[in-house]
């Protein structure tokens, strides 16, 4: 089986590809990466470059041969599953990571740690509405955590705003849409938003980082302790960064805004922290984290035993 990471997981969100590979290893699945992995053609197809897409798709098809293909990206999935047969007349044996993960859990090949954490799930358009795969990622989440649905889910899931070349040509429109989707997610009360399309993650995360879209600003976890770093907004501009303790009392100014322009986000209005942070990750990262938890627990138990004997 070829693990076709796709451009975003390969070059922008390598953590997604790393997590996926870890899971494959844990499950004992043989796989290979392509040398000089190519492009599925999705972005070209969606933006009107049909002739260029055809060439690219034929090259990629040659790389793949008759192998089974595993993809992380919903866009790749739709391209291989739907566009290749329709345009090139060639079926590709493709599986999305969410589908493989669901199977691995079902077959007992991986046993992720189960917690009561509340997570919400965003359906990527290319996986859900376009291809009808709503259940596999939910199965993984429901097996390992508490899934809380957004009002708009499955068929009616709101687009993250990145698709169709809008993110590259009209980033502001993309961000506006992403903000609406993040609000949908926040309403669930979950602090973790899981999806399984690196394009969606990239857009949702960058919308969170763009303080000008709304009154949202970044904050990121400061190390391992219970102190968070928060950027305080004044008139929607990040002005200051303070460390806050778990009870949300400000304890110290630790850095300037630029330092923490990062991954996690909190809502700060009029100097008050009103929103919870929303972490946005791929299903593979979520699952790998759960497998690590299990490992830690197992090792922990073994160590205890040794000490005991």
């Amino acid at each position, binding site marked *: 089986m070829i693990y076709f990471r796709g451009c975003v997981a390969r*070059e922008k969100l390598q953590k997604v590809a790393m997590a996926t590979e870890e899971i494959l290893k844990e499950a004992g699945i043989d796989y290979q990466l392509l040398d000089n992995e190519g492009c599925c053609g999705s972005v*070209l197809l969606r*933006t*009107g470059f049909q002739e260029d897409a055809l060439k*690219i798709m034929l090259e990629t098809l040659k790389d793949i041969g008759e192998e089974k293909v595993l993809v992380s990206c919903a866009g790749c999935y739709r391209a291989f599953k739907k566009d290749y047969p329709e345009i090139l007349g060639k079926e590709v044996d493709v599986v999305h990571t969410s589908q493989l993960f669901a199977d691995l859990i079902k077959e007992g090949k991986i046993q992720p740690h189960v917690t009561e954490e509340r997570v919400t799930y965003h359906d990527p358009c290319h996986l859900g509405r*376009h291809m009808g795969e709503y259940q596999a990622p939910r199965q993984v989440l429901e097996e390992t955590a508490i899934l809380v649905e957004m009002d708009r889910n499955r068929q009616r899931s*709101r*687009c993250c*705003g990145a698709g169709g070349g809008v993110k590259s*040509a009209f980033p502001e429109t993309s961000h506006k849409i992403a903000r609406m989707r993040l609000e949908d997610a926040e309403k669930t009360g979950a602090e973790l938003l899981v999806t399984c399309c690196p394009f969606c993650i990239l857009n949702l995360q960058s919308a969170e980082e763009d303080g000008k879209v709304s009154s949202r600003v970044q904050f990121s976890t400061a190390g391992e302790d219970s102190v968070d770093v928060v950027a305080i907004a004044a008139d929607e501009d990040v002005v200051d960064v303070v460390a806050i303790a778990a009870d949300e009392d400000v304890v110290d100014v630790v850095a300037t805004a630029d330092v923490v322009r990062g991954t996690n986000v909190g809502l700060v209005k009029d100097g008050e922290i009103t929103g919870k942070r929303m972490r946005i990750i791929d299903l593979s990262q979520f699952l790998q984290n759960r497998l690590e938890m299990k490992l830690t627990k197992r090792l922990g138990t073994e160590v205890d035993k040794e000490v005991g004997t």
Partner: protein
Amino acid sequence: MKDSQINIMNHSFAILDNRRTTLLQDERTVKLSERVKKIREKAIHHLSLLMKTAHENLLENGIEVILADDAEKAADIIYQLVKNEAIVAKSKSNTAGEIGLTDYLEKNGVDVLETDLGDRIVQFDPESKPSHPIGPASHLDMVKIANIVSKKFDIEVKAEPRAILDVVKADILEKLGHCRVGITGANSVAAEDGSLLMVHNEGNISLLSMLDTHIILVGIDKLVPTLEDAISVVKLETIYATGKTVPAYMNVISSPSKTADIEQILLKDMYGAKRVIAVLLDNGRRKALEGGGECLWCIGCGSCVVTCPVYNALGPEFGYLRHLGGRGVVLSRFIKDMDVCIDSGLFSCTLCGQCSLECPVEVPTSEMIEKLRRESVKGGISPTEHRKIKDNIKRKRSPFTDSARS
């Protein structure tokens, strides 16, 4: 549109969406959708034949028929009919919006009295554009509306719906007394019966149809074979647009006012219009048949924009005049040209496919948009960023300029 107006619009949309949830899942609605989808597909497929049939039967019924090739001609045809009037009354019509009728008439010295409450409010506000085909003032909140109306009449109007309605209604009724011509659209046209069907909730179209002359401007895409088909179409439109199964009023106009009560002798001009004139508008529709006829299946319910992520972010900027959202973008290619289509948002659609799912007749908008993008790219026009990405992919098998290959 301002962000604050977009927020109000989305809030109105959310209320509408909630209201119709149960009804949309009702088995009867599902069956009606299936029936109407077939009616619409077939009608568009046989449009030329239906046009011939409609023309003959409307004439037969005593309705004058004028064919208008494009927006400019249609506006001028109507102007020629009303040029001696100081003021004409008009109901809500997306087709009139498409040809810029109100602006054209007013520029040429004929005042236009919008009789739909939402339209009238939007008419008072120079900054506004209608934001939903059925609820044109969806983007304005009550306080803003009260301000607009207060300013217009130079009186203090309370931010309370009844107070606003009373003031606007009194003014409309006073002015309506001076009108001899009513201009309306039609929601569906029955070709075999020679009947035009229009729906409304306010009762304004009933009033307009009783004036001396009733001009009905309608796109040729609104044709269906029979009155039964037409009623199915408008019923479904009402369900999707408002969350109710039927509108307050359905008017069927099949002739000027007439009687034969005296020895079966036909006499015209009883209570209603002396003249009924149907202006059938092409404006790119027949051209659309060649490359995107699916966009003509539309029944005008506006369901597609309610949950469209791009429309929720940009408002009516995404679309063409009163043809809102992605389907309007597609139609603009045929009404105007590729440049207008691009300006309307050809490359702003995320292709998420939500609109087709929300559409009762499943207009395949994202497929049509992809097709038009291919045409645009072939003609050498695409966003600079897209061309960069294409070049990157061709050069190094990756869309990104700034990342290292691993």
